[in-house]
């Protein structure tokens, strides 16, 4: 069996977990491996349907009163118990904030290795093989597990969600054996900013600004553009973040986040090597820059040489026209 951790945030199953489940189905099929999903807490009808649509054969629901909110040690303990009972060939998690926190703790508990933040996964003659970026994408490693089960986190927005329902679906409730000193940290509260914002790692479209934005106030232009483009989020280069124009959560590049959206739009970003590393795996790249020699044009599918302060207002108008 290939087991997939289903991450629930605000009562909703993360799309990245369905990407992992679809991947498990794809690689499992060739070797006749079943696909199991595991969640902590109770199963909603909606989550159950999502799992079924993407091909889960069985869903395990782990429950314990101490697991009401996320805890790295509590969750890893619970998952380790299931792994010990069910002996899966592999366990996949989405490389989200939760997955990246939980997986290495679980790996240490199970005394196995971990392939972090994978962008490809195959099962070849019984051996799991994954590809993962290093140096934020300046190079790629192909890795194989030398321990079992194979444990990996999969980068969000890279693997497709494939709907391929399983013929039957079982649901099993499992009580977890825990006491208070096994739950060593506890999320007391989730603190949100004033605006509900989509994270750049999860967005379909990332609209980024760099030094050419000239000031914090001008990021409003990007937000206005974002309002016209569905599933978009605001990114930034390191120089824009270091200048204090926008929070670090938005930074794309080697000391920020690596993103793989369908469309990456770079406004006033010259394209330093650290930045290119963080966005070169985007499906399409659009760049707007005054300098025709800017390195960003070397990776852009579509470049406009021009002043972003002229281009954005025009672009907004054209998008509005296009919509109507």
């Amino acid at each position, binding site marked *: 069996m290939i087991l997939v951790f289903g991450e629930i945030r605000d009562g909703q199953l993360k799309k990245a977990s369905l990407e992992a489940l679809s991947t498990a189905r794809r690689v499992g099929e060739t070797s006749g491996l079943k696909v199991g999903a595991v969640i902590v807490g109770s199963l909603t009808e909606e989550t159950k349907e999502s799992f079924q649509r993407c091909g889960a054969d069985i869903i395990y629901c782990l429950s314990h009163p101490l697991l009401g909110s*996320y805890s790295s040690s509590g969750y890893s303990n619970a998952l380790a118990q299931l792994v010990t009972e069910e002996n899966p060939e592999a366990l996949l998690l989405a490389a989200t*904030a939760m997955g990246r926190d939980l997986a*290495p703790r679980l790996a240490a*508990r199970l005394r196995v290795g971990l392939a972090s933040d994978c962008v490809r996964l195959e099962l070849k003659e019984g051996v799991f093989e994954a590809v993962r970026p290093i140096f934020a994408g300046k190079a790629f490693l*192909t890795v194989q597990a*030398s321990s079992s089960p194979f444990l990996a986190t999969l980068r969000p927005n890279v693997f497709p969600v494939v709907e391929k329902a399983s013929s039957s679906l079982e649901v099993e409730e499992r009580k977890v054996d825990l006491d208070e000193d096994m739950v060593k*940290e506890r999320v007391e*509260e989730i603190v949100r900013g004033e605006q509900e914002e989509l994270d750049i790692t999860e967005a379909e479209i990332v609209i980024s600004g760099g030094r050419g934005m000239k000031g914090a106030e001008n990021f409003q232009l990007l937000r206005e553009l974002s309002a016209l483009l569905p599933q978009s989020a605001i990114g930034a280069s390191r120089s824009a973040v270091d200048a204090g124009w926008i929070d670090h959560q938005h930074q794309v590049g080697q000391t920020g986040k690596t993103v793989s959206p369908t469309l990456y739009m770079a406004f006033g970003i010259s394209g330093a090597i650290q930045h290119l590393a963080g966005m070169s795996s985007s499906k399409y790249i659009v760049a707007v820059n005054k300098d025709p020699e800017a390195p960003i044009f070397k990776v852009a599918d579509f470049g*406009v040489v021009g002043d972003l302060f002229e281009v954005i207002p025009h*672009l907004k108008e054209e998008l509005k026209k296009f919509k109507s």
Partner: protein
Amino acid sequence: MNIFVFVKRVPDTESKIRINPTSTNIVFDGLNYILNPYDEYAVEEALRIKESQGGQVTVFSVGPDEAQAILKKCLAMGADEAVLIKDESEELYDGWRTARIIVAALQQHYPGFDLLLFGKQAVGDDNSQVPAMVAEMLGLPQVNVVTKLEIQGSQGVAYREIEGAHEKVVFSLPAVISAQKGLNEPRYETLRGIMAAKRRQIPVLTLEQLGLTEEEIKPKVAVVKVEAPPPRKAGQVIDEEITEAVKKLVAFLHEEAKVI
């Protein structure tokens, strides 16, 4: 408060990475090395806690002799002690190995501490594994990707970055914390600090002293290949009147990228 910080020597983020065709690794010759940027936030946070609450800051690095340079930088920033855990192996991209080495050193030689601080990941291996693995091996609480940390007596509150929000996490000391950019603004070394650090002898622990055999710390994830990223071809670059250029851009978004 006895604070340990774990730092790594990494290639400068400006480095071009080349592939070594005869091995399963990159070319290390000619790279310029720095203190891992995320580790700087960890060192700074340790110094701030020490300054407000008293205590001692010890910095550790697992790596070759050359890692003494980053340990000296930490001493120059204000750390009290530094220890090199000497590991001459090439980068193996395996968090398990490093975590095992750190845990052995702590258990055998440095058992008393209140806080273990790390950077949230090393730029390079990009694994984000070692802090959580060390926490599990030592049975400690962990909070990763922290942008704000408050310690009061034996209790801690940390805010960790998640998608579009922060989690407020409560825990007891001793604990493992990994630092994210935004936690603080790291200080520069003082000239006096740099001069004093130059003269310091850094104690060295070897893997033999820790009784670790290669078998015990063999990587649990084996690298079978390393490749350059698929090259991206430059597409069309429009350098004409803005109104026309934008019309073509919208057509591109619709017909090619299919996002509108």
